[in-house]
């Protein structure tokens, strides 16, 4: 924590893990390089925890994501609340079976006799120059999987509050951290506070258009709304926080009021999360809409390395602005 009380996203994650481990000895953490003997994690999110809680509860693993995920699932069934760190979101592709065929289904397939309260943390995001295999936003895949939740945070305090709730939640939760945000600082969350899953946050009220987003774009949309206000356009900004199942009430109530909506995410647009939200809005509020719902996402291609391409790949704030201006006529 810096002198002004601000705290980075990574530190906030660390605080959440620390508080969760202090609150319950059922919380364990597994992941690559996470113990202090390994420097406390590649992003330092777990720094200090193995020293404080022991290497029985904070375990550095081999490079074996199926083993990590399986260990978390088995321990969860037996009563623990493991947090599995899968370093990058793209690495979920080597352990999808454990997460999708097992963690998400065991409650249902066992008729409720077992359940899998695991939290899977991972990072991702374009902008660092990691290229095609370390930058994908794949949340739409997991949103399509019944039996699990998908959560993302838009600033350090939100990250802490949501992560604490994810760990307490009795269902498997995928917690996505944006690599571009780790160093970002913000107000800390008060000790003991949590942010419930399943509830979107209206960051700013408005009457002309609803901007629905999550993760990194949230802060950008806050700023854009500020700009728009200067131009006489009143934008409501919603941070979904929980992407799946998403908070339909908050979204629909807002768009019922504004009659216009834009969904913004970093994932590529085609077949992305925005498609479901847009469809739901059209289905429920067709008659109330003053314009078709607009989606803004990244381009249809693998994440490129070359810096100008990487920037051009990303969802464009200008496109959001232009869409809103167009909608307003």
């Amino acid at each position: 924590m810096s002198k002004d009380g601000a705290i980075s996203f990574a530190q906030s994650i660390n605080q959440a893990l620390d508080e969760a481990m202090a609150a319950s000895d059922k919380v364990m953490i597994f992941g690559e390089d996470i113990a202090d003997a390994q420097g406390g994690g590649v992003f330092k999110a777990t720094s200090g925890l193995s020293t404080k809680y022991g290497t029985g509860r904070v375990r550095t693993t081999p490079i074996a994501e199926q083993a990590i995920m399986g260990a978390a699932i088995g321990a969860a069934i037996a009563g623990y609340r493991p947090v599995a760190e899968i370093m990058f979101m793209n690495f979920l592709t080597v352990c999808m079976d454990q997460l999708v065929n097992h963690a998400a289904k065991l409650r249902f397939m066992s008729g409720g006799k077992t359940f899998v309260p695991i939290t899977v943390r991972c990072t991702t995001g374009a902008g660092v120059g990691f290229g095609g295999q370390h930058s994908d936003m794949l949340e739409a895949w997991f949103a399509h999987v019944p039996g699990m939740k998908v959560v993302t945070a838009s600033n350090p305090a939100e990250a802490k509050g949501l992560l604490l709730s994810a760990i307490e939640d009795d269902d498997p939760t995928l917690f996505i951290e944006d690599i571009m945000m780790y160093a970002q600082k913000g107000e800390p969350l008060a000790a003991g506070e949590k942010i419930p899953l399943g509830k979107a946050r209206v960051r700013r009220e408005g009457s002309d258009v609803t901007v629905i987003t999550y993760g990194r774009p949230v802060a950008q949309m806050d700023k854009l709304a500020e700009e728009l206000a200067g131009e006489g356009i009143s934008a409501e900004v919603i941070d979904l926080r929980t992407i799946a199942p998403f908070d339909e009430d908050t979204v629909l109530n807002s768009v019922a009021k504004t009659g216009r909506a834009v969904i913004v995410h970093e994932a590529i647009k085609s077949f992305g999360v925005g498609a479901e939200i847009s469809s739901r809005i059209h289905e429920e509020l067709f008659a109330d809409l003053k314009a078709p719902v607009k989606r803004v996402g990244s381009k249809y291609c693998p994440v490129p390395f070359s810096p100008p391409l990487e920037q051009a790949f990303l969802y464009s704030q200008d496109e959001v602005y232009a869409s809103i201006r167009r909608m307003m006529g």
Partner: protein
Amino acid sequence: MATKEDLDIETLLEIYRRSMRVYKTDERFRQMLTSGKLRLVYYPVRGQEVLSAAMMAALNLDDYLVTTYRGVHDQVAKGIPLRDLWAEFTGKVTGTCKGKGGPMHITDPATGVMVTTGIVGAGLPIANGLALASQQSGDGRVTVVCFGDGASNIGAFHEALNLASLWKLPVIFLCQNNRYAEHTAYSAGTAAKQIIDRAPGYAMEAVRVDGNDPIAMHLVACEAVARARAGEGPTLIEAMTYRMLGHTFGADFSYVPAEMQEEAKQADPIPLFRALLAERGIDAATLEAIENAIGAELDEAVEHALSSPYPDVDELRIDVLKEEIAA
């Protein structure tokens, strides 16, 4: 290794009882499928009864089991109530999983049956997690995970064995080497001369045993259980056996050489076990009494299953997440 003097008769009879529960259950499934009274995808366990019985007899009821689609021998030998099992296989709400899981996904924590998976190899990493929970809590439980010879070629096997050894987990990897993976013979899929040749790559204790020999198998099982309970880490057991029928019930298995089939008949563990018991002075009446008791229990279980209701369609909204899904 083991000689027939090594096991007391009570233990042997216990293994026999478990074997017969498996044998009769499997037989009844196949009878009802043949007669058309039942329709489901069924994975026969004929030939693998004894190895499973000998393993499970070395466990406590609260020890954990993870198994696969071909798992009815493991579940029954572990002690799952036949009523609940049959009701699950027939998709009834009285089943172990309210009919939602079905034959490939049996779970019954009361008897330690924690996960049954249909994904080859997937049980191994999960078994580590169960064992880890025991290691961490000190509850003294042991986890056994069953899988086939074919499963030893998939990545999850490798990751799980390495982790278990590294962390000295109280887990037993029971490879039931029945010489086929679906239609593929052992040597067409597995470069290792024997599965246990993989153990040194994980610095893991390993033993190959005739799974059809109840005494040898049980002694190996007991040793592995003792090692796990003592905190000395995991064991890989390669139990040699044979899948006497096709991969699924009714499936063609003409790809199996006739001599192999013939040889396997000679090694059928059930008649051999009976002969062994006779040698040890158990008379036919005792065995018959065991079989009859199981038969009666089975009749009741089948009747219960068939007369039970199907789950209500509302169940689709329940157990997906903890909170019920809105209608």
